[in-house]
């Protein structure tokens, strides 16, 4: 039974990883268009990516839009989540559903909606338009992550802080926020990735000026199947990999530091000024 489970697990992992196995080698390929297995290898397409403004501009747009989307999303989601998780008010369940709505509606429907609605407001083909649309799509994801975190938050910690002399504001800054930080970071990361990855709405409303990377890739694959796409995919994969591994690396490093510290037996180290 256990062996069977392992076998199934292996097959699933292979299936999921298969695109990577194809894409990564293709990025080093010297073929004129996407082709697998590659006939030969070179770094020419990497050079092409890093020198061609028609690729770098959408990359920059995507980073800009995803960052702004993240900021806007968090500004909206943090207070909303506190209100929805911690307080009772009239219409709360409706508000809850509204928060999650953009996730339930197909992106294509949202995209058509934005196209006509933003058109009237002259927001189509602008960065602002894409940022607003993406924020709308990111809100439910960020909300889900953060509310799960907030629900698990032990409120006696806040009571303790207040009994120790912290006003509600200082309690929030010194206790609530630091403890929720991992949740906030993950929530923000999801918002960022959502925007960076979003294609359908971007195709409809980003236009030439605010063209995002996924849109440019989509156009490119339709027109010429430029192997630069494989380069970008590989680079994105590496970035994500670094992002995923960083916490583990940091943890391992910290564990090491602590061990060496414990060895040298620092007496009341706290007496020395810190930070």
């Amino acid at each position: 039974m256990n062996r069977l489970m392992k076998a199934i697990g292996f097959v699933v992992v292979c299936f999921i990883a298969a695109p990577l196995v194809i894409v990564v080698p293709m990025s080093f390929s010297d073929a004129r268009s996407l082709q697998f297995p590659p006939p030969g290898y070179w770094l020419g397409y990497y050079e092409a990516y890093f020198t061609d403004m028609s690729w770098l501009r959408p990359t920059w747009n995507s980073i800009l839009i995803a960052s702004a989307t993240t900021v806007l999303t968090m500004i909206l989601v943090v207070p909303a989540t506190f209100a929805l998780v911690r307080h009772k008010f009239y219409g709360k369940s409706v508000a809850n559903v509204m928060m999650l709505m953009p996730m339930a509606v197909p992106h294509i429907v949202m995209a058509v909606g934005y196209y006509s609605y933003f058109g009237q407001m002259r927001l189509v083909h602008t960065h602002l338009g894409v940022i607003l649309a993406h924020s709308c799509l990111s809100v439910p994801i960020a909300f889900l992550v953060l509310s799960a975190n907030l629900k698990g938050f032990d409120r006696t910690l806040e009571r303790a802080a207040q009994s120790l002399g912290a006003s509600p504001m200082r309690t929030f800054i010194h206790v609530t926020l630091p403890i929720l930080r991992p949740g906030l970071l993950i929530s923000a990361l999801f918002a960022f990735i959502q925007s960076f990855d979003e294609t359908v709405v971007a195709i409809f409303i980003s236009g030439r000026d605010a063209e995002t990377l996924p849109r440019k890739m989509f156009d490119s694959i339709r027109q010429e199947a430029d192997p630069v796409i494989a380069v970008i995919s590989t680079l994105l994969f590496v970035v994500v990999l670094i992002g995923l591994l960083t916490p583990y690396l940091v943890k391992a490093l910290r564990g090491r530091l602590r061990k060496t510290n414990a060895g040298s037996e620092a007496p009341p180290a706290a007496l020395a000024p810190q930070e």
Partner: protein
Amino acid sequence: MSSYLNLSGVNKMFGDFQALDDVNLDIERGEFVTFLGPSGSGKTTTLMIIAGFEQATKGRITIDGKPLDGLKPYQRNIGIVFQNYALFPHKTAVENVYFPLQMRGVGRREGLEKANRMLELVGLKGFSERHPKELSGGQQQRVALARALVFEPSLLLLDEPLGALDKNLREQMQIEIKRIQKRLGVTTIFVTHDQTEAMSMSDRIVVFDKGRIEQVADPLELYHRPNTRFVAGFVGESNIMAGHVVDATAGLAECAVFGSCRYPADDRFSNGQAVNILIRPEHLKISRKAPESGEWATMTVDTIVNYGDNALVIGHSGDHPVRVRVLGADVVIIKEGEDCHISWRPEAVHIIAET
């Protein structure tokens, strides 16, 4: 007549539910007072009202003559130890203890020094750099205590702080808390539903039941002279029998189980008044032969529970269950299923008015 902490006429409603019913209490400066009572009796609610986390529906509270109304929890200068300790997980032990000082504008160097001294006082020297999750339950408890004391609070509140600890550690912490409290002289309210804990630690015990204070007394008074049937049953083991007063001036009562019982005469009672007669199990003496003098009754032994140094004999007299505590060496004289005699002295009889 001014006590340090005064609660007068405190009522608390949660919707239609009356959680506290006219609570009046005076606590002296430096006293160690325990709130004892069954689950849901209003102990935590009272504490939370004193701390400012709940608002009393009626009544007022003063500390040192100054009313607390309108003061927010963070303005009250009251230290609290919560049942789950509520240590800040992102701060080390010493940073946790420094926190209240930081909130009071004490500089980091001076504050950390003071926090370290406080950790030393609670026996945690050398643990200051650990995070809460790297500490055992008892150690976390000590950090929480240090944190609640470091800012010299005008009152220390502890809500079942030992509930999560095992028996040995619990007893150790009881002694520790008592020692630290005495040393610092801080006025303390300690909540528990463990009566032995209350008996061993307190200057005075406040017994709560259903949102009301049943009795306030020092531990021995509470044990030997409970005011109500509830207190008699809740604190310690007891034989409580319904009866009535026969002769109030001579101190004679009667109950169906033990017949007539003399008791130390008390002018609170009148002839014919319905009362409860309390005799603690350790005040009953078992013998095979009927005693020649004094008062006695017969009893059939059902079960003997041996604890080594002593034993609890559970039996019945008529329909009424009777519990007798005997010294371990004496238990050999009786066997389960046998009949025997029990006797007692008038001083051991306590009469409680039926309410």
